[in-house]
């Protein structure tokens, strides 16, 4: 069973999810690749679905007009991406799956921005794969910018 708690590399940023997570996805957009440095695996969590232990080490970076990214200012761990634009997905989190204490039992069920993926790597298995345009349409965002 996957855990509901997680933390950054150095332990200064900790959180608890309201629900046990069951699946994660990967985002191939250039901003997620830069932020994580590798492959951003995220757990979709609705607004209010995560509680952060109070800390002054959680830093926020406004990465676009409609998204912000949370990271630990001590260790640099990528902790979350959050949609800040208006629409059906406002306030939605993508919590970094790697920060979860235990990912047992989770399924890898989606890849997004698949058209931005570098040629150097691909992931095995069947799952939903969405392009940038499909993601933006679902989020109700008009621009072509990554978040």
């Amino acid at each position, binding site marked *: 069973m996957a855990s509901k708690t997680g933390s950054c590399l150095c332990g200064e940023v900790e959180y608890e999810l309201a629900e046990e997570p069951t699946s994660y996805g990967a985002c191939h957009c250039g901003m997620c690749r830069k932020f994580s440095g590798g492959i951003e695996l995220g757990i979709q969590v609705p607004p209010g679905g995560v509680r952060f232990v109070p800390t002054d080490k959680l830093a926020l970076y406004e990465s676009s007009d409609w998204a912000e990214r949370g990271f630990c200012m001590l260790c640099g761990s990528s902790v979350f991406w959050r949609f800040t634009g208006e629409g059906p997905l406002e306030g939605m989190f993508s919590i970094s799956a790697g920060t979860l204490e235990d990912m047992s039992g989770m399924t*890898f069920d989606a890849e997004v921005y698949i058209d931005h993926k570098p040629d150097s790597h691909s992931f095995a298995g069947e799952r939903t794969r969405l392009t940038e345009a499909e993601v933006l349409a679902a989020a109700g965002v008009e621009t072509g910018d990554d978040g």
Partner: protein
Amino acid sequence: MRTGQCLCGAVAYRAETADTVSVCYCKMCQRWASGVFMGVMTERFDVTEGADHLGVISSSDWAERGFCKMCGSNLFYRVPEPGYLSVAMGSLDDTSGLTPRVQYYVDKRPEGFALAAETKEMTEAECIAFFAPEEGDSHDQV
């Protein structure tokens, strides 16, 4: 010679890199890189901009991780002794010509995750035996 930078552009570097990617699934890399870390070994690495915005954490007895303090972008993994540095693949401006070569800590790979490509694979025990045979401890130090 390749170049790279963080999301916000505060920190930039140039590096002479290998053409291969090393993938690591250890829990420290998972926490740091949000899922899977992909590093590209360098023979030479220079910060060309924003050295004062570069954060470096000693994440274990033998390794450091560099990131941008302004935007949180992960930039490199460095082992001061014997002295090598891998840039985070995501930070490179141009990733053309790179291919995955090895996967470390494959027994810690997130459930359901697999690269399509076949590469050399090493388990946690094999990595420890290879990289830190005197230590004998798990790399999940922090």
